[in-house]
């Protein structure tokens, strides 16, 4: 599973291992500033990269609150 999302820190905090950062909260896989054709091309490139992560090995990582501060 690849998590394609905009607020990456939340995805990390619940332990996602493969994360692909999205464009913006209301359009993680789009961009209304582009023409329809450009936007479609951008999305295809994005998903091509995202699916390629499915075939990459990843190491286990922890969730949030790993650091402990001394006060």
């Amino acid at each position, binding site marked *: 599973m690849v998590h394609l999302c905009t607020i990456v820190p939340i995805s990390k*905090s*619940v332990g*996602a291992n493969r994360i692909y950062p999205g464009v913006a909260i209301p359009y993680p896989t789009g961009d209304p500033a582009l023409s329809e054709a450009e936007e479609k091309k951008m999305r295809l490139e994005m998903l091509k990269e995202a699916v390629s992560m499915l075939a990459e090995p990843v190491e*286990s990582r922890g969730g*949030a*609150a790993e650091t402990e501060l001394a006060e």
Partner: protein
Amino acid sequence: MKVIHYINQFYAQIGGEDKADHPFEVRKQAVGPGLMLQSLLPDDCRIEATLVCGDNLAAEWPDELEKRIAQALKECGAELLIAGPAFNAGRYGLACGIACKAAYSLGIPAVTGLYEENPGVALYRQFGFILPTESNARSMKETLERISAFAGRLQRGEDILDPEKCGYLVRGLRKNVWTEHIGARRAVNMALDKVHGRSFKTELPMIAFSRVPPSPPLEDLSKANVALVTTCGPVPLGNPDRLEAHAATKWKIYQVEDFGGPALKDVDIAHGGYSPTYAERNGNRVFPVDAMLELEAQGVIGHFHRDLYVTVGNSMPVSRAEQFGAEIARSLKDGGVDAAILTSA
């Protein structure tokens, strides 16, 4: 005591999701819930300024927001930061956490109010006193009363070291304090209590990590059956299954045809936590069906699974999210799916 208050664009009465990109600003007065907060705070605590930022900007540019808040805190000579309360609002909760972090970096105490499952808690708990709240704003007055009382304790320099007694969530900070007995004796007493089956309380609870063992990589992407899952809530026009706008109670499977074909023009957005304007014009902006079909056509992936999995992630209880995750994973396996892309707003 100079108090600075952080709120979002909604509580500053600027607007809802359509104004979630509202830029950071400083207002030299109490605003929105700050008015009630001011009336509850001790007499010599004054809200010098209110910091306001749109929730989308805050969540998308956390480092920038932290810098801007730190700068404002310095300029105002802040002695205490109060953020929110944000209850279970995810982006707002993050923003309150960011504000606490900015204050922490300057040695200024910070207080906020968040629901325990708000993502801001796990990410920023070290940086401020987070008072646990109900999940929604119905408890605003009661929460502001607790925040004000806590601010009073800070102002009077009272002992606020015990999270349980003082009513805030454990921060995970270490501080050296004097106790009646040395550690060895306390540890032995605890061990004796344990052996005798008496109740005892650890002094250092282990942090629960959300660790998920990563799945092994696909051997051959060009032969894999890949599915698409989303928490963004795209539904067929009219939302026939009545998928809820927040705290959804179900997940659904749709077909491309239910959305009027790959251009995903016949889409409503059930999710109540982001502006639906963009995705309702083209559902691919949150649920990239057209790209997945193209990747199948180009042979990048072996097959694009035609069952499309949809739910709404807005304010979903973590326990239900885990249940949905397990159910959807089971359904994907039964459907012969090898891997999936999950999109979230």
